[in-house]
């Protein structure tokens, strides 16, 4: 069953077509839209499960739409990194479920427009899945645009008073970075005459045009850095992620920024296999930028009173971890970085879901207002605490593995300084965690709404609890993502013909 070849196009097309059809199916009654979106995500998840099963059993495989052979046709390629669609499907599915009640509560969204929200969400998820499985540089750009555009629009949905400004800022930065990506895709096409990634990788080494290749590498890195919100191009992130509706924050913070990272990984595959440029300088730059992101993100996070803003800053910090792992470029550190792509998505979604539930019930979003919520929303508070412990990286939670492996990588690469940076960043985040726990559990409530709050409705509570449980389970079952990532990293670190 899992060998059926058409699962691969199906996994991309289902959410995209589903998005296009959402307004139509909900013409008669808008209540169809959430169920429709959930159904689409279910189909996608099934397809994703089949694909992951196949890659686990058989290794990477391709799908050539229309039977056009490489490099003439376009290619969908599914390798171990593509297994990250599992987490896209998981969080996407839960975000749709979570939105059932959350969208009804958004003041600024007229009720009859709600189907468009689901259309945008499906579009976003479909774009991400496409981005992950495409084997073609231009399609990489197209999917990047699909997911970015829907992301800009979703940020604006929330109706907070600066939502549009945040969305516009996000749009400007995002559009510039997309154009930079497109420009360098053009350069790569110009020097190799191909758009297929594997083909580009094999031709790039022979072209001998080092300067344009280096230019393309630099520009692509910058472009993906903006998407991943690495210091110093992170400025769009805090506003956009904190202002977006909570399920969207979870998707944006957990998944969308990761695509910048996956883009960088793809880039590494191309350039490292072709061997045209020594990546050492780039790696050093990335490591330093990662280190600065870790400290700066954590530092800003500590001083936030607004929970969602704090979570947004902690995303920057965590992206720093991942990029540092990639930049150290040792076996362990890349494993650590890639594992964190999975685990951070789960952790961040837990945190945003739980924070969203609190905001939903009380209308307050700052720690000083949410004091004492631990006794009125105990399960949500436990979930957010677990998420916070995870993000600090205390074993045996999901966040620990990444820190362990990246620290190990730092020592393996003989750059112990970065090991210390890593731990220091974790300590800073812990300070925030303590502030949060103090506020939730040990301080007397100041708001009547907080005292009167009850647990969020089931469609919000259970996704949160499920993810919180996963935060714990993924720490203990760290070998599962590792089993996927290790061969891929091995392949990444082995140059072509080597």
């Amino acid at each position, binding site marked *: 069953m899992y060998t059926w070849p058409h699962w691969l196009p199906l996994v991309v097309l289902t959410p995209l077509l589903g998005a296009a059809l959402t307004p139509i199916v909900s013409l008669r009654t808008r209540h169809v839209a959430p169920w429709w979106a959930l159904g689409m995500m279910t189909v996608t998840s099934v397809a994703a499960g089949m694909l992951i099963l196949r890659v686990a059993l058989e290794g990477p495989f391709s799908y050539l739409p229309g039977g056009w052979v490489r490099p003439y046709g376009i290619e969908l390629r599914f390798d171990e990194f593509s297994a990250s669609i599992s987490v896209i499907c998981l969080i996407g599915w839960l975000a749709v479920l979570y939105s059932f009640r959350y969208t009804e509560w958004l003041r600024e969204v007229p009720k009859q427009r709600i189907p468009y929200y689901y259309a945008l969400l499906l579009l976003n998820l479909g774009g991400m899945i496409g981005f992950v499985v495409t084997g073609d540089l*231009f399609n990489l*750009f197209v999917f990047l645009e699909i997911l970015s555009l829907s992301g800009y629009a979703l940020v604006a949905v929330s109706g907070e008073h600066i939502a549009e400004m945040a969305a516009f800022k996000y749009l400007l930065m995002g559009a510039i970075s997309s154009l930079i990506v497109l420009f360098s895709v053009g350069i790569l*096409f110009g020097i190799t005459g191909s758009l297929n990634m594997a083909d580009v990788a094999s031709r790039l080494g022979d072209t001998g045009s080092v300067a344009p290749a280096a230019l393309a590498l630099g520009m692509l890195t910058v472009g993906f850095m903006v998407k991943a919100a690495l210091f110093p191009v992170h400025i769009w992130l805090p506003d956009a992620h904190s202002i977006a509706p909570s399920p969207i924050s979870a998707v944006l913070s957990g998944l969308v920024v990761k695509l910048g990272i996956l883009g960088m990984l793809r880039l590494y595959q191309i350039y490292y296999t072709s061997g045209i440029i020594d990546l050492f300088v780039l790696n050093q730059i990335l490591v330093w930028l990662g280190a600065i992101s870790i400290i700066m993100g954590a530092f800003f996070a500590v001083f936030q009173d607004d929970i969602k803003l704090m979570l947004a800053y902690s995303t920057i910090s965590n992206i720093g971890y991942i990029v540092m792992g990639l930049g150290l470029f040792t076996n362990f550190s890349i494993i650590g970085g890639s594992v964190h792509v999975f685990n951070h998505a789960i952790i961040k979604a837990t945190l945003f879901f739980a924070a969203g539930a609190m905001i939903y019930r009380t209308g307050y979003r700052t720690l000083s207002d949410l004091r004492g919520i631990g006794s009125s929303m105990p399960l949500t508070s436990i979930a957010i605490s677990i998420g916070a412990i995870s993000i600090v990286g205390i074993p045996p939670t999901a966040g620990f593995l990444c820190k362990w492996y990246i620290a190990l990588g730092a020592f393996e690469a003989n750059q112990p300084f970065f090991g210390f940076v890593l731990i220091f960043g974790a300590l800073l985040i812990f300070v925030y965690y303590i502030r949060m726990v103090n506020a939730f559990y040990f301080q007397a409530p100041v708001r009547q709404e907080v005292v009167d709050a009850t647990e969020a409705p089931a469609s919000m509570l259970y996704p949160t609890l499920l993810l919180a449980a996963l935060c714990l389970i993924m720490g203990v079952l760290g070998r599962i993502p590792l089993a996927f990532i290790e061969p891929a990293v091995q392949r990444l670190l082995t140059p072509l013909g080597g």
Partner: protein
Amino acid sequence: MLEALWNNVDYVASVVLFCIGLYIIIAKNNLIKKFLGLNIMETAVFAFIIALGVVDDGSPPIMGEGASGPFASPIPHALVLTGIVVAVSTTALALSLIIRIYRQCGTIEADELREME
């Protein structure tokens, strides 16, 4: 050096255009102007990609009677068509955002908006 630049004047032009667009985004205060800068950048990239497909003395890549090589590469055209579609949707979204910002805040000057935050 100069000769090399002159030989690749199409590329140079698109890079210059790209930088002009970027400058406008950074320097201008009005959101619409910022956005026009983005449009200029888009145009620059499209021009660059189109220029990649040019083959000296190439004929249009249309099969049929009397078609004979060398042909200009058709792929860039396909890419740019897609790119334009993307650009249009970006424009639409940005303009709608600007309209909403204007309705809410009564201004689309970036510095005034920043003060309102």
